């Protein structure tokens, strides 16, 4: 453990100033109107001026901008500021930004206090601007009060294993493993099934390049297997995980191996939605299949050697039904076995379906292809071209509403030949060039799909089908053991949830865990690879130096006060974050608590139970809380606008 904190940091950092003579700069951000449209920032600044001895108090449209940050830096050098308080957005967004600015000005980054007056004030107080302004003034007052008692802290630095474990050997995991190895990190790749490649290995051609999926995969798999930095375990599963960022310990079954690793990339992938028995005739009629099965049929190396046939009969009419198991609506769709609806769009299926439909029309021009869709969502680059192409190739589109889904049923028994003859348009001679269309029309399809087509003015259409293809979406894969062992957070739809969808898109809430590919959300191969590379880059950046810096907000023990009662050990939620140790002190053996800084999360449970106040969370010390509470309840009557 490496903790170097000054004995009397206040005195040392502030050149003898006392808490009441400290020079404090207060900055109120408009957030481009997000705050200033509701909160009267002038009045907040005015009040703050009275609270902070009026050294520097400013408001500014965007404190996070470069000019905003430079304001702080210039004031620190020109006005000799000792503390900085910024009242702006949530600290999760920009606390780091302003700490970094303070550090750039040569001050300790922890002599900074962040006050949230956006999420906690302006956004929730739109109906009461005066009340919101008063609340902002009190929060700023509390921030200033706490700032007076801040002490300089040093980040904790510790060794980290320059090794990453990638869980999942699909395209995303393979990409991540290969990228990590090329950066020079050792990688262990753990795959549950017997072979690498995941779902992609089962696919025939992939958009938007029309590459053979297996060729692309083979290239990547060969690279991964041939890479001396990568160890691959197939038919293997992580069954136990412990440790912390930089030093995780994974137990892998059934090989009974233990992996010491610095970071973990989760690339566990998805499952295809399994249609319910009878959903669009699935499981009832052998002619009803799913899109992945169609892809297998189209594959020359697949079960039908690339022939489009069902039950030994050529397929004249194919009907593809979109959005099966995706975009489900309460009251319309049946919840799955887990009682949940898949409300999200699986995104990749529209383009994948259009691609397959186009291929059928090109390779089997006599086969009619119908696509029954709710909406066509060809969102990516080069995707809309597939819609254009399918349309040009004569794929017929019908649009159904969610509450009137298509109905698949067996065709009525074949009519006698006399009736079929009677259907011939009259007056057509028997010459070869005048074949009546009903002779070409395969009227003996096994199934009939009925759809109320909004493109045909709500007409009820009856479509003959030799093959009905259900375009099933992606559902979260069952990874409960990992979720449990690694404390992973999942979003409402069941996929793994990142820290922030935009700013930290591949990081999980637990430090050192990254997410790649479709275990996070439905995405296509390009996106999965991009996510794999992103996770690799993030993990590599974390472990590049072999050491990891952590925020110093943890609970050090005041050895003068600690009596070694051990209440903190009982209260601690994190395994082995605080332990009792026996040491020699002034010639006597004493017991006291010791905190493992890598495992401590600074939650403060120990502080609450400590009978002597020996253990306190840095950055959130009790005297700081006291000061904040005093400030919040102080008498501000003269600056507040009263409202009845």
């Amino acid at each position: 453990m490496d903790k170097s904190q000054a004995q009397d940091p206040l005195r040392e950092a502030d050149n003898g100033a006392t808490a009441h003579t400290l020079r404090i700069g207060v900055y109120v951000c408009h957030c481009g109107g997000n705050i200033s449209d509701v909160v009267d920032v002038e009045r907040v600044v005015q009040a703050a001026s009275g609270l902070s001895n009026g050294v520097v108090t400013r408001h500014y449209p965007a404190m996070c901008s470069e000019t905003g940050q430079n304001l702080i830096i210039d004031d620190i050098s020109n006005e000799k500021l000792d503390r900085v308080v910024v009242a702006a957005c949530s600290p999760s967004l920009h606390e780091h930004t302003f700490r970094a600015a303070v550090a750039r000005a040569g001050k300790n980054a922890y002599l900074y206090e962040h006050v949230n007056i956006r999420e906690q004030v302006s956004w929730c107080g739109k109906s009461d601007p005066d009340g919101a302004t008063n609340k902002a003034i009190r929060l700023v007052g509390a921030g200033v009060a706490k700032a007076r008692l801040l002490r300089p802290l040093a980040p904790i630095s510790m060794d980290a294993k320059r090794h990453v474990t990638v869980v999942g050997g699909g395209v995303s995991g393979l990409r991540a493993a290969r990228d990590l190895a090329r950066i020079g990190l050792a990688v262990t790749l753990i795959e549950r099934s017997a072979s690498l490649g995941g779902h992609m290995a089962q696919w025939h051609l992939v958009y938007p390049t029309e590459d053979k999926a297996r060729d692309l995969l083979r290239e990547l798999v060969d690279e991964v297997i041939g890479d001396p930095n990568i160890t691959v375990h197939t038919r293997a599963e992580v069954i136990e995980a412990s440790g912390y960022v930089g030093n995780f310990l994974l137990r892998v079954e059934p090989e009974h191996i233990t992996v010491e690793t610095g970071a973990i990339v989760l690339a566990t992938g998805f499952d295809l939605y399994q249609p319910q028995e009878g959903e669009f005739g699935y499981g009832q009629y052998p002619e009803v299949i799913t899109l992945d099965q169609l892809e297998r049929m189209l594959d020359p190396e697949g079960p039908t050697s690339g022939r489009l046939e069902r039950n030994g009969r050529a397929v004249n009419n194919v009907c593809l039904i979109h959005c099966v198991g995706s975009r489900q609506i309460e009251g319309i769709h049946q919840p799955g076995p887990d009682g949940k609806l898949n409300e999200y769009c699986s995104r990749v299926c529209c383009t994948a379906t259009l691609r397959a439909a186009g291929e059928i029309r090109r390779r089997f021009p006599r086969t009619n292809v119908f696509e029954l869709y709710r909406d066509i969502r060809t969102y990516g680059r080069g995707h809309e071209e597939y819609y254009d192409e399918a349309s040009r190739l004569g794929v017929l589109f019908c649009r159904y509403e969610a509450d009137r889904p298509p109905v698949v049923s067996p065709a009525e028994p074949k009519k006698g030949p006399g009736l079929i003859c009677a259907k011939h348009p009259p007056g057509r001679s028997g010459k070869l060039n005048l074949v009546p269309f009903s002779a070409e029309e395969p009227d003996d399809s096994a199934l009939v799909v009925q759809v109320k087509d909004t493109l045909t003015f709500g007409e009820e259409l009856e479509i003959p089908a030799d093959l009905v293809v259900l375009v099933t979406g992606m559902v979260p894969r069952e990874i409960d053991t990992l979720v449990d062992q690694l404390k992973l957070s999942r979003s409402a739809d069941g996929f793994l949830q990142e820290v922030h969808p935009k700013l930290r898109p591949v990081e999980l809430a637990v430090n050192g865990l990254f997410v790649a590919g479709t275990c996070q959300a439905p995405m296509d191969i390009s996106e999965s690879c991009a996510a794999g590379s992103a996770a690799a880059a993030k993990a590599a950046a974390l472990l590049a130096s072999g050491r990891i810096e952590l925020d110093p907000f943890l609970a050090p023990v005041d050895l003068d006060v600690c009596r070694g009662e051990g209440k903190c050990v009982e209260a601690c939620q994190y395994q082995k974050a605080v332990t009792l140790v026996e040491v020699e002190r002034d010639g006597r053996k004493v017991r006291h608590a010791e905190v493992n800084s890598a495992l401590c999360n600074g939650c403060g449970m120990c502080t609450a139970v400590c009978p002597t106040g020996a253990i306190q969370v840095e950055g959130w010390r009790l005297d700081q809380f006291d000061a904040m509470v005093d400030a919040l309840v102080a008498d501000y009557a003269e600056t507040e606008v009263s409202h009845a």
Partner: protein
Amino acid sequence: MSTRVHPELHRDIARFGGDDITKCMNCGNCTAVCSLAGDGAVFPRKTIRYMQLGLKDKLLASPEPWLCYYCGECSDTCPRDANPAETMMAMRRWLTAEYDHSGRGRRLYTSEKAVVTTILKAAFIPLALLLALHAVTGFQRIVTDRVELNTFAPVMWVWAVVLLHFAFLGYHLMMNALHMIQHIMKPEDPEAKVPWAAYLLELKSLAIHFITQKRWRECGEEHDGQWLTHLLLVSGYVIMLVLVVGMLGWFQTDNIYPVYHPQRWLGYYATLVLIYASAAMLIGRFRKRTQVHRFSRPTDWLFPSFILVGAITGILVHAFRYAGWPWPTYGMYLIHVMAMVAMLDSEVGIGKWAHMIYRPLAIYLMNVKKRTQNQAVPEAGALPTN
């Protein structure tokens, strides 16, 4: 009730032209720009959608194709270059063939060989009849020292044959029109009945639209020229028809009347108008500058070409007789008659006669339906009676 799709149907219709319909994505721009669409007639979009899916019964029951006059604005506007205007044209050809249960229409539209055979067969009839007449009479009826056309081709005999031919053609046309009415008026609800009064009360609109084709003018002023040319052509054509079918005994004469005599100036007017209009159409098709002339099928060249040939040969017969040249007169007369018989035989199945009837009939039937629907709507607040 659900309608079965027949996706192969469009391959059949594509043989009549407009084979770009697979490009259509049903956006409806064509219908939005069409100044005739509306009031329950959603074309070309609806017609094209029916075509894509092969909803044959719906197509046969659609009067919409006949409400389009091919201004071409939809094709100009189509974001997919699916040529909706030409598709509507193809639809009219296909419908014409479908109404024609004899199969002649389909053969003529889909086979160039059939067009040539039909023309040759038809042209052979007057030649054979005339040869037979002269063979029977020992070639005594050919007067060579002066022009005696009515001796060469006795007008009453010719007239009788013309009337027979027209009865035959007219029967066909009426049958086809009847088929069209059956398809369009086929009720979706078997209970719903169209009262006879509605048919009677709308007859006036049938007559007006038949004579003027005035709905065409709603396409926009810039298309008035086309409408006028067409109206001139119709006037010339109808005059000639009346003169030949109704008054051949008066019209085909060896008397040379003074210029102010109606036999002369009616003939001159009709001939000039026909030459002008047919030449304008042929030039348009050569230039392909307007949408309506961009795509020409063999059958589209047929009618204006025959009109031009007919008018020119007619003028020449007249001129040769005036000049007193017996052989050129007789020869040109024979060519003239052969050409006109061939024209009528090929036109009744496929072209101008057909649409002359079908267009006003479609408007008429739409109006009859509308009148029935309006009457079927109960008055506000009226209680149902048992």
